[in-house]
């Protein structure tokens, strides 16, 4: 892989205003993802993981910093360059029930990216759509179906097919399984992984489920309140998380019946009600109010994302030891 074939976020910031206050959905996020990497971004609601994905796709405007795609600043791209970018980076959205236009059938839906991004002919689009369905393990008569005639799992497969229609190099999948039953989720994740391997394609899987992240990604980026708190290879993050928050997430991740659970039982600061904390109001580390390993400086100084050895990084003044 050539150098520069990466998506790089440099101090990217996005602000929202909700309920009369400003919230930094992304707060100076700097990460770099290779186009063939399979990464997962994990965090809870409000962590900014969805905003991260949408920012990379160019669907939200940055309030600070920049995002570069293959060395080019996306904020300065012209329309032609944006279309080129869209051909190479495609999303799969969270809600399969909502990602298909109710008034379009599957063929129309799959043809759209080919028509606008590839300038394909009608016949090409038809042929390509059929082969995509086959790839997804769907019958080709599904081309004529409308969304309400499909199940959630089928729709999500078709959403993936749409993303693949332009032969992209990178997929950004935002919670692709959260609206699906467990039994269908595995199928989608397996499919995504299989396609990535076959096509030498990278993806960024945004999820709140550590289990899903660990299952599908080689590298996990953990976010908390708009900041990246840890970024490591999957195996090492699961076995020895460095940031206390990561350890909590892993501790609460679903496990199979019969597997021993080692949950961090006592929560931070005992009398502090975790529900009553507004992390955006904290001056230092946003996790400090809930943290069991809180130091004095945690409440004052924002921890930087530092190398922790083994290629990983964590943003913590008092990280856990590597096992």
């Amino acid at each position: 892989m050539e150098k520069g074939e990466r998506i790089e976020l440099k101090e990217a910031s996005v602000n929202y205003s909700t309920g009369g206050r400003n919230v930094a959905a992304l707060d100076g996020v700097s990460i770099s993802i290779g186009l063939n990497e399979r990464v997962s971004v994990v965090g809870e609601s409000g962590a900014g993981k969805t905003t991260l994905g949408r920012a990379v796709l160019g669907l939200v405007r940055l309030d600070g910093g920049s995002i570069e795609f293959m060395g080019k600043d996306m904020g300065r791209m012209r329309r032609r360059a944006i279309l080129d970018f869209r051909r190479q980076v495609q999303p799969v959205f969270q809600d399969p029930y909502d990602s298909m236009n109710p008034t379009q059938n599957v063929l129309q839906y799959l043809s759209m990216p080919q028509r606008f991004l590839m300038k394909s002919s009608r016949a090409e689009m038809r042929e390509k759509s059929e082969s995509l369905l086959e790839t997804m393990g769907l019958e080709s008569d599904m081309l004529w179906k409308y969304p309400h005639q499909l199940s959630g799992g089928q729709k999500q497969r078709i959403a993936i097919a749409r993303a693949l229609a332009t032969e992209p190099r990178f997929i950004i999948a935002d919670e692709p399984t959260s609206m699906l039953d467990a039994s269908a989720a595995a199928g989608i994740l397996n499919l995504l992984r299989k396609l990535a391997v076959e096509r030498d394609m990278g993806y960024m899987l945004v999820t709140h489920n550590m289990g899903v992240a660990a299952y599908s990604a080689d590298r996990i980026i953990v976010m908390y309140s708009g900041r990246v708190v840890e970024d490591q290879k999957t195996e090492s993050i699961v076995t020895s998380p460095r940031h206390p928050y990561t350890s909590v997430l892993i501790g609460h991740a679903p496990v199979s019946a019969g597997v021993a659970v080692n949950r961090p039982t006592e929560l931070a600061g005992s009398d502090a009600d975790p529900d009553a904390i507004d992390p955006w109001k904290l001056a230092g580390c946003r996790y400090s109010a809930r943290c069991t390993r809180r130091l004095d400086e945690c409440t004052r100084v924002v921890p930087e994302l530092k190398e922790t050895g083994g290629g990983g990084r964590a943003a913590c003044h008092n990280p856990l030891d590597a096992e």
Partner: protein
Amino acid sequence: MSGIVELADLKIIFPTSRGDVNAVDGVTLSVEEGSVFGIAGESGCGKTTIGLALMGIIRKPGRSEGGIRVNGKDVSSMKDEEQRLFRWKEVSMVFQGAMNSLNPVKNIGYQIAEVIRDHSQVTRQKSMEMATELLKKVRLPATILDRFPHQLSGGQKQRVVIAMAIALNPKLIIADEPTTALDVVSQEYVLQMLKAVVEASNSTVVLISHDLSLLAEMCDYIAIMYLGKIMETGRAEDILANPSHPYTLALLDSNITIDKRGKKVESIPGYPPSPINLPRNCRFSDRCAFATSECYESEPPPTTMKDGRTVYCYHPRYEDGEG
């Protein structure tokens, strides 16, 4: 049998323009007093409908057939006022999505006091005192009383709902996906709260969830549902460790957990049939890896295994348990 909940071949049908939806299709079960009973299943399997039916809530034009006895009373034949007093006094409920189960235009104190006042002759002041006490039990400060639901976080609202559920010391508490929409840390906190409260009050709990890990942690007994029908029911640890019904097996296998990283998780093949005009054979047969011709012909009768569990299958997998 003398369980606190007795369901005898319960059917709940919602007529639609396309035909009758059999949300619950012949469920027989019994819940032992003082136990925690889990109902598991994927979306649309009828578990929430059962929860509501236990309180006598079947929205028109839905109707029920078969028996629902709670605390020795026939729920379906109660008169209006009798039913009203029965609700909450004897059975209360922690709702799925507490976000939306509080009245948005009234403050918390009013809403808790309202339940108390509508069921007993207490003064406004006394009921407010009781509300403060209840909030203390879920570790919420009295200042919450004057707040409106939109001013609280999800976890706080869920705890308010729990406080409300124990307000009248009911014999039975139904908890419908009590933690689904919460962050992991809040989830943990809320679960602790629920456990503590249940233990203190000596109530029976029916816990409805799709999260097998949660059920494994909380429940004494468990019922696995698929398309309005129980597939397997018995002690939680028995069933989750050694599933007997092929559906339970497949469900557990397809559940992505953190310990399954690097392994291949298989989803259940195919899609569930429509709940309208259900087939009169085993409803899992189409997707079952072990199905034989008899599975396609008639519905399997309940089989009681050695460890006391009941399985609705011609070919139970956990052979050792068979009596």
